[in-house]
């Protein structure tokens, strides 16, 4: 820095000086006395959004999972032993509207045919629920003959051992047509046991109550059975039963055919099959 530069700086300082207005001074000084404002962490906003999304998704899934229970009636009808009881006995909301014509269906207590789980050629969609142990139904030889030997036979027997009572999948209709009559006597549980199971199912509380009473030791089997009563397939089958009861066999046949096309993998419970098929 030389003298010429100093002269230049002196010239500059001779320029009129500008100063901030007093109001601005006061504003800045007031701000300086405020406590430190903690900056929000960068991850706070994304984390909050993610947490809300996860909670919302969980809530939606929970509601969807519990929705079928909410549609169940307050008092399920007595279940038939050895069958998918709710499908035959517990009316859905739609069925409740037609209860005047459904009544005879519920009272109809066909003899339960043997459970022919082993004959299922494609058991991929079978569901096994671990509840309501039922006296093991011996497999009739007729069933063995009626069903083609498949790679699922061993697996099915094992599953039958584990939870036969809740085996929702019924034998295929084709197999049932030829084998039910022969297999029924052998597979039918004792009457006393059937009554016991029926009583248990009939006294099962509605889903909401059952949830409340689950901690008090109420058996989970009736609750689960009631839960399954609301499946769309069972509702369709009940409708076909109603058509049969009303003597509309042609409509029932058409509905049954449509059902078979719509649900090729669904195995109709033997007791239900007895109701829906043309006699």
């Amino acid at each position: 820095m030389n003298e010429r530069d100093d002269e230049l700086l002196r010239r500059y300082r001779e320029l009129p000086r500008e100063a901030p207005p007093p109001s601005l001074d006061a504003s800045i000084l007031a701000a300086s006395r405020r406590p430190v404002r903690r900056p929000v962490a960068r991850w706070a906003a994304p984390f909050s959004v993610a947490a809300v999304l996860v909670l919302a998704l969980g809530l939606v899934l929970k509601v969807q999972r519990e929705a079928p229970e909410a549609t169940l009636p307050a008092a399920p009808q007595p279940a038939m032993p050895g069958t998918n009881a709710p499908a035959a006995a517990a009316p859905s909301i739609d069925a409740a509207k037609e209860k005047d014509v459904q009544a005879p269906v519920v009272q109809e207590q066909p003899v339960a045919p043997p459970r022919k789980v082993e004959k299922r050629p494609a058991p991929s969609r079978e569901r096994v629920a671990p509840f309501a142990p039922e006296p093991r139904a011996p497999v009739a030889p007729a069933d063995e003959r009626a069903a083609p030997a498949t790679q699922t036979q061993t697996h099915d027997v094992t599953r039958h051992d584990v939870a036969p009572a809740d085996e929702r999948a019924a034998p295929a209709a084709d197999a049932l047509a030829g084998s039910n009559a022969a297999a029924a006597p052998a597979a039918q549980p004792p009457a006393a046991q059937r009554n016991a199971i029926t009583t248990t199912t009939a006294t099962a509380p509605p889903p909401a109550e059952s949830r409340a009473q689950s901690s008090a030791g109420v058996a989970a089997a009736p609750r689960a059975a009631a839960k399954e009563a609301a499946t769309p397939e069972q509702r369709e089958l009940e409708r076909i039963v109603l058509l049969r009861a009303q003597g509309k066999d042609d409509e029932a046949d058409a509905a049954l055919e449509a059902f078979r096309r719509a649900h090729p993998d669904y195995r109709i419970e033997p007791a239900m099959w007895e109701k829906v098929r043309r006699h």
Partner: protein
Amino acid sequence: MSVSDEQLMLAYGAGDAAAFETLYGRHKGPLFGFVVRSVKTRGEAEEIFQDVWMRAIEARERYQPAAKFTTWLYTIAHHRLIDHWRVKGLAVVPLDTGDDDEGPALDPAAGPDADPHEIAVAVQTRDRFAAALAALPLAQREAFLLHAEGGLTVPEIAAATATNEEAAKSRLRYAMKKLREAIEDE
């Protein structure tokens, strides 16, 4: 012996509000002069001036005396001005000479008994200087103002403007050369 700027800022970061008032009193004039000669209007200058101090206030707990306080403060001002110039399309802005209604201010060097001719010459020289300063390219004007108002050295100017020392030195040299030519061209 007065407390240094860095000590005052550290004290303010520790909760001493009075330390900030001292700092503000020391630097508000030069900083405002730097800002007001870097933008077009006084309103813009006040807004930028307030933002610079607000940023300094918000950063009080993070302040580390790695450099002079003035370098740190004028670095904040430089960044704020860069934002302002970007919004304005980096236009070269003329110097805001204040309210035109007030007329030319008296030359400080000219006393009440000064010769009217001398006063007129001084005013003309000052006006030429102000005009030359306003006509400088942004980078050169900023370098000169950082040196003249903030007292920053070439390395400090380089640090405050995020450039190297050669560039800062060149900008400052060109700025002073043009200003010198303006006041010597009589």
